[in-house]
């Protein structure tokens, strides 16, 4: 066997710090995606046609262009406009922005799933628009879409290796550096692949459990 297990074990600790960075990017990126996506979804239902159109176009544009290019855009262009941000912050921003276009669609489905009568009852009770969204619509819209949001969390996690392109020391970049130092790419790259596989399989299992729980919540 050409795969050197001893070497593989010896480099394993080097991935610890990288895994922390990957997790930071994943969780912060998802948090941003959850917030921004909600903003787009609500803006798309705005009574102001221009606001609704712009939000719709923005979502479509973000969804139709590569994350890598968006990442480059933020990494190279943003500093020209002033703000100095670290590669990690750039990565979080790009991941959050990119996935907000997907979460926006999920929110939209959830919001459309709330019965019309709920809006009507809220109007009949004279609840304002903000109160209606916050207390009546969103609590009902979010529970059924939790599994879908969970799937996008996993998808976002799997895109973090792209951040290696802007010099962030996450898992893949660490593997590449080890490879460049030792001229052995097989072990570090395989380890990273295995790590992603294990973590996303675990996350998928959790999501499926969540799905079942949400079904029970809705029907029970």
């Amino acid at each position, binding site marked *: 066997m050409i795969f050197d297990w001893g070497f593989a074990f010896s480099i394993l600790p080097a991935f610890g710090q990288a895994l922390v960075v990957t997790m930071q990017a994943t969780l912060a990126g998802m948090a941003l995606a959850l917030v921004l996506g909600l903003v787009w979804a609500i803006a798309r239902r705005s009574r102001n046609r221009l606001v609704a159109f712009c939000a719709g176009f923005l979502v479509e544009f973000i969804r139709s262009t590569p994350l890598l290019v968006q990442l480059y855009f933020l990494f190279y262009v943003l500093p020209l406009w002033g703000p100095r941000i670290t590669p990690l912050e750039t990565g979080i921003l790009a991941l959050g922005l990119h996935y907000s276009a997907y979460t926006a669609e999920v929110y939209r489905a959830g919001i459309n799933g709330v019965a019309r009568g*709920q809006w009507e*009852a809220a*109007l*009949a*009770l004279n609840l304002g628009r903000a109160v209606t969204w916050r207390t009546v619509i969103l609590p009902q819209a979010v529970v059924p879409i939790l599994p879908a949001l969970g799937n996008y969390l996993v998808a976002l996690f799997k895109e973090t290796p792209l951040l290696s392109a802007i010099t962030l020391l996450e898992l893949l970049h660490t593997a590449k550096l080890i490879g460049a130092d030792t001229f052995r790419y097989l072990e570090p790259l395989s380890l990273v692949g295995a790590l992603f596989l294990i973590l996303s399989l675990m996350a998928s299992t959790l999501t499926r459990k969540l799905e079942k729980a949400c079904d029970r919540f809705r029907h029970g």
Partner: protein
Amino acid sequence: MTVSATDNKPALIRISRAGKFYGAHKVIDGMNLDIFPSEKVALIGPSGSGKSTLLRLLMTLEKLDEGEIEIDGVSMWTESMAGRKVPAGPAHLKAIRSHIGMVFQSFNLFPHMTALKNITLAPVTVLGMGKEEARQRAVELLGEVGLGHKQNAYPGQLSGGEKQRVAIARALALRPRILLFDEITSALDPETVGEVLEVLRRLAQRQDITMLLVTHQMHFAREVADRVVFMEHGKIIEDAAPGQIFGSPKQERTREFLKSVLQY
């Protein structure tokens, strides 16, 4: 109470030449109707006659296409700004709606809130009532509709009749002067219709509330209404005291309709 007895008071709801279209279809067609304070008016007629649309127009769930609706002398869909008539803004509509409450056929309770929370939500957020005061008032209201023991139940744990009684309590919590009831027993199991009608019967005694009911329960309409309005094709065909409508209707169409619904 008859129509003539209230003639000298100003109308609380005045509907003049009102029209509502869905495309080319006229759902409400040049309608005129005055409703006086504390009146209990039943709207009857075949399905598609525009009864529910009329209630939805009054609740501002639908926009009026032509004519005018006034609540207590104030135009619903226009307001004057710097001496000119302009389309009503959100604040104006909100002020108008503060006089009106509605109970729906499909209850429309908020499924993620307890019965109590369903009732306190609007008083707290709309009227700015204190939480404790709102809670006490909600407990009272639940007691009045016979559900004092169901405060912490979620809608999913209530029967249809119980849900509808919570919905009535919820509408009452805002102390509206006008209450609209849109076929509120149509979605109920037959055995729970009675408990909801009982609550309505008691409400009908109150002089501080004006009621409009769309209903298919003719016996009930006869019992609680001061006035019965028969509608068809978006127009009022006959408008009279229940005794006359059900006893000796003047219009041929009214007679035919009543014959067909009272047959069984």
